[in-house]
């Protein structure tokens, strides 16, 4: 059933993301781009007393945008040590929809941005 991929939660997050926007003077940030579809996600992270907040910006398909939004939600109030080893599987589990080969890149674009951000610093 391909359509399950467009679960209510995914569409709602796509239409009204909770964590879309920019962070001024972020501690970590990075942008990832998928040339295949032109999707772009910039992820920014700030630490307050060791706890994180995250926001994303950019554009793309429902899956990449919803996934980035959910990922930002997941990062919130965590410590770096808790998120620096997030695996692909962790993100697809969070999404809780069936992701097939070609769409995996969309679903993981936010995670790639997170990994680059932690590597880059600000």
């Amino acid at each position, binding site marked *: *059933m*391909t*359509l399950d*991929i*467009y679960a209510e939660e995914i*569409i709602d997050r*796509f*239409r009204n993301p909770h964590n879309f926007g920019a962070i001024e003077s972020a501690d970590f940030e990075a942008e990832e781009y998928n*040339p*295949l*579809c*032109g*999707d772009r996600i910039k992820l920014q992270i700030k630490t307050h007393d060791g706890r994180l907040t995250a926001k994303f910006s950019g*554009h*793309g*398909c*429902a*899956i990449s945008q919803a996934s980035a939004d959910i990922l930002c939600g997941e990062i919130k109030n965590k410590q770096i040590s808790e998120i620096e080893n997030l695996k692909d599987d962790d993100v697809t589990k969070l999404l809780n929809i069936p992701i097939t080969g070609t*769409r995996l890149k*969309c679903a993981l674009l936010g995670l790639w941005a997170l990994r680059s951000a932690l590597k880059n610093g600000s």
Partner: protein
Amino acid sequence: MADFSNAIKIPQDSKEKCRSIFLGQENSAEFSLVSAPSRALFGSGIRQDFPILKQKINGKRLVYLDSAATSQKPKVMIDALKSYYEKYNSNIHRAIHTLGEQATEEYESTRKKVAKFINAKSEKEIIFVRNTTEAINLVAYSWARNNLKAGDEIILTIIEHHSNIVPWQQLQENGIKLKFVDVNKNYELDLKQLENSVTKSTKLVSLTHVSNVLGTINPISEIVKIIKEKNPDAKILIDGAQAVPHLKVNVLELDCDFYAFSSHKMLGPTGVGVLYAKEELLKEMKPFLFGGDMIKKVGKFETEFNDLPWKFEAGTPNIADVIAFGAAIDYLENIGMENVHTHEIELTKYALEKLSEIKDIEIYGSKDAKQRGGVIAFNIKGAHPHDVAQILDGEGIAIRSGHACAMPLMKRLGVESVCRASFYIYNYKKDVNAMIKGLKKVKKVLKL
């Protein structure tokens, strides 16, 4: 169920007979926009010849609208492939035995069919390669690298497929300059700009016959005249990947120097492409690849190359697929390319009408179906092409989504990607209706 693969063996003048076979197989209202002669041939009748179309995708009837990427294959072509491997598989040109002789004859007979199909002067002008991309590379390596020098110019257009851009970019390292011709607001090539771009330094103009995104059919004869008038020595390469499958192409009339296309987009197998070039050019050109088959006589330190066209076909060629490509050409010849084109104009016209009724849709390309091939690129506001394609796939509908291998054109259009529906002989009004219904579902799912 009637098998159209037999019906296509009926000579042209018996098409009346075919019509009676196919009419009434489906609700004839589905054909109401298709004129009487093509009604008999296109859509549901022809679908019978394509085994893949009998399949269900996600439980739904397969609606294949991605023929611009690659076409589906008729059973006669698949049978020709099978027959070669089962009955006369052997290497060509050298064998003195029955199988080898038959294989050579069939292989060379496809070359004759291709020459006739595009009206080349001689089959010596037909070189088999792997695809359009390789045909263009052959010209870049064998002709351009040996004939162009620093300061020379190559003119391309903004609507080219990557395969007609990237090979030329590589020549920039030798100081060769690239220029791009733009489109006007109707998405047609700016012929004035083209004319102004041609100078004494212009050595090559390489452009597509039909755009794989906008569908625009470029007026090649007129363009060739414009170029040759300003610089008679400039050579002209036409990328015919989206033209030969859909229109009657006459290279002699077009008067271009090179013409490239792919079998897989015209009912034939993958792995076969054609480079047509004027004989006098091919004679002067150096071989592209070296080795067996392209030789006449080999010494320890020197080689005498083979005659045309074999000079350009090194090593054992794609025998099976070339032979099967011949069957695909026969199939198209039996239908008649004028009929193919008429059918596509009618379907495109219908699709353009229906699509324009959708709110918040942007259609790229001319609104006049007569000016374009059966390719329609569009975007629905708020819907990413990948999401559109995926939701349509759930309905059994295959369209393309993405940059369509034309990133410079995407940039020119100001988009990252597009949805693209493309039609061929086996599509009919019912497929367009399915897509329209599917697009309504897209809007519902994405809450647009």
